[in-house]
């Protein structure tokens, strides 16, 4: 191995290694005095090294600059709407009528739309995502793992426009044409026929009123598709956190006679709880920022949703749907940048929180190496 390595090194370095440099310089003739020679020689490649370091470091700062630019341009373009219409009125205003005369830019319905789909999605996606992670990291045998991990990774990069398309053409019709009649017609009839108090009256009425799905394009359908988007994000981060739990913890637990589930539940999960919460936070960030699904599936109504089968226009959907028709530098254009700025702030705060948690977590892991 070492011989191969050194051979390869010589091959690779021979273009420009110090030996050739030295040879070249000998041909050219060294400066006469020994001191001068050393100084010149050192100077030359030290300068080059410095220059390289400068260039590399400058490029290394690109991401910082980009982030600052994103913040700057978003807030610059958003400033006008908050300034002209009043920040509080814009954020808490309940009417989003950007094209009316006069227009009204209350973002509250959009914010509540995002909140509603995020909540419903989180309720489904967090247990499924964490469950997947626990399965892959702790339960599955090697072969299942080798099979499942790439699949989850592929699900993560599945184009969201196709997910949205699937939601539109498959899930939405199933909900409105198939599930709705069963839940809001057949079920109440069945309940009524039982003649049991409460069930045949209140519960039947509830089904009749609330389980009627007017349109399949609503926040529940969107949440279902968003869940598919969030599961791989949550599970891959959570799996890393679980795998990072030292093997010694598991061994200690097994050696005390714990079974697999007890070891997972009482040792592995508590030891990785910060990593798992980072997974959940970043998963929620993904849900909040996902655009195509809420754009195509959530129904598009810019009103505060009151029930799980209502339509909504979450923030990313508003931006994506309206930007094309908003005249450049109009108030509408600025309002959409305002929505973008709020979205950016939310995800920025989520990143800060998860970064804080994972730093703390890393500190603990270093501390235990004592």
């Amino acid at each position, binding site marked *: 191995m070492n011989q191969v390595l050194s051979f390869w090194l010589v091959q690779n370095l021979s273009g420009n290694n110090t030996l050739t440099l030295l040879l070249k310089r000998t041909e050219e003739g060294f400066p006469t005095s020994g001191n001068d020679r050393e100084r010149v020689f050192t100077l030359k490649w030290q300068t080059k090294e410095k220059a390289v370091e400068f260039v590399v470091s400058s490029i*290394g700062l690109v991401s910082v600059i980009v982030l600052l630019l994103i913040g700057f341009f978003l807030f610059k373009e958003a400033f006008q709407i908050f300034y002209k219409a009043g920040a509080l009125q814009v954020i808490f205003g309940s009417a989003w009528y950007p094209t009316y005369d006069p227009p009204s830019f209350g973002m509250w319905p959009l914010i509540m739309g995002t909140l509603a789909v995020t909540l419903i999605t989180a309720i489904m996606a967090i247990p499924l995502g964490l469950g997947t992670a626990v399965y892959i990291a702790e339960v599955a045998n090697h072969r299942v793992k080798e099979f499942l991990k790439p699949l989850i990774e592929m699900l993560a990069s599945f184009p969201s426009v196709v997910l949205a398309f699937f939601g539109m053409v498959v899930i939405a019709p199933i909900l409105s044409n198939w599930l709705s009649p069963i839940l809001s017609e057949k079920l109440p009839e069945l309940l009524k026929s039982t003649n049991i108090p409460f069930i045949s009256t209140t519960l039947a009425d509830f089904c009749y009123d609330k389980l009627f799905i007017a349109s399949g394009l609503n926040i529940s359908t969107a949440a279902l598709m968003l869940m598919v988007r969030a599961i791989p994000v949550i599970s891959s981060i959570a799996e890393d956190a679980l795998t990072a739990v030292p093997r010694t913890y598991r061994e200690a637990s097994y050696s005390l006679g714990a079974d697999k589930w007890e070891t997972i539940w009482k040792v592995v999960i508590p030891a990785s709880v910060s990593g798992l919460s980072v997974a959940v936070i970043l998963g929620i960030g993904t849900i909040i920022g996902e655009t195509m699904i809420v754009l195509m599936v959530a129904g598009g109504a810019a009103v505060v949703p009151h029930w799980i089968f209502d339509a909504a226009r979450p923030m990313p959907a508003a931006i994506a749907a309206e930007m094309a028709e908003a005249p450049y530098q109009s108030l509408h254009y600025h309002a959409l940048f305002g929505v973008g700025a709020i979205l950016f702030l939310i995800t920025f705060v989520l990143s800060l929180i998860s970064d804080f948690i994972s730093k703390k977590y890393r500190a603990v892991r270093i501390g235990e190496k004592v």
Partner: protein
Amino acid sequence: MQDTESIHKPFMLVRKKRFNLKQGFFLSLIRMLGFAGAITLFVILFFVAYNGIHVLSWEFITQPPVDAMTKGGIFPVIIGTVALTVFCMIIIIPIGVTTAIFLSEYAKPGLILNMVMMSIYTLAGVPSVVFGLFGLAVFVVAFNFGMSLLAGSLTLAIMVLPYIISTSEEAIKAVPNSFKEASFACGATKWQTIRKVVLPTAMPGILTGSILGTAKVSGETAPIMFTAAAFFTPGVPQSLFEPVMALPYHIYVLATAGTHIEETRPIQYGTALTLIVLVLGMNLLGIILRSRQRKKKAW
């Protein structure tokens, strides 16, 4: 023999079966949850493939759309997505890899490193539609590129930057220290070591990361909606400053806008299938390459 003996022992070490309801229940629950994602993937794949497979043909992928996009193929759409992706990668791979070199070889712990790390971390969490807004404000308007291939590629590039950085950094950090030491011992400078030893050794990992990044980029819709994507262009783009059609945007417009939503359903399925084959194909390629590299790794 042992069984009979054990009966006389003070403790019951031998039981016919340890019936553990709790463990059984939770582990089977976890097993079911574990497969939910995989099953979903297969269901959607199957559905799109089932409806799209008979649309796909040589003509479909080599002909331009005709009759208000209700007939014909999606050739310019495919070319648009390929062009966006290729330019995006040409722009971002050098920057991403250099940043990774900075992070792993040059940066000293301190404020600057923290700032860079924090920025990458935050960029990774920024919603794609916000990148679209940024591209609109900066590349389309401020730089006056207009809705164009260039503006779209730049926007996608910024979006995928954190991913390229983190995969490259991982690949670079995996280069064993002994390689670097050997190189230094041969009298190489730091930059020579990076260029001749670190980068060649990390290159397979960097390439794999870039392929996976390419897969992510080619499926994105929101960042190109206001920066590059056109509803319809008559042919393939002739310059960097022309708007382009793209697969994901094509699916979106055909499925939601226009007057022929039902008539173009087959084309929608065909486009979706093409996109999936492209994205998942590249993904699979990346995953296979990566697992090969891991197995092959001798150090």
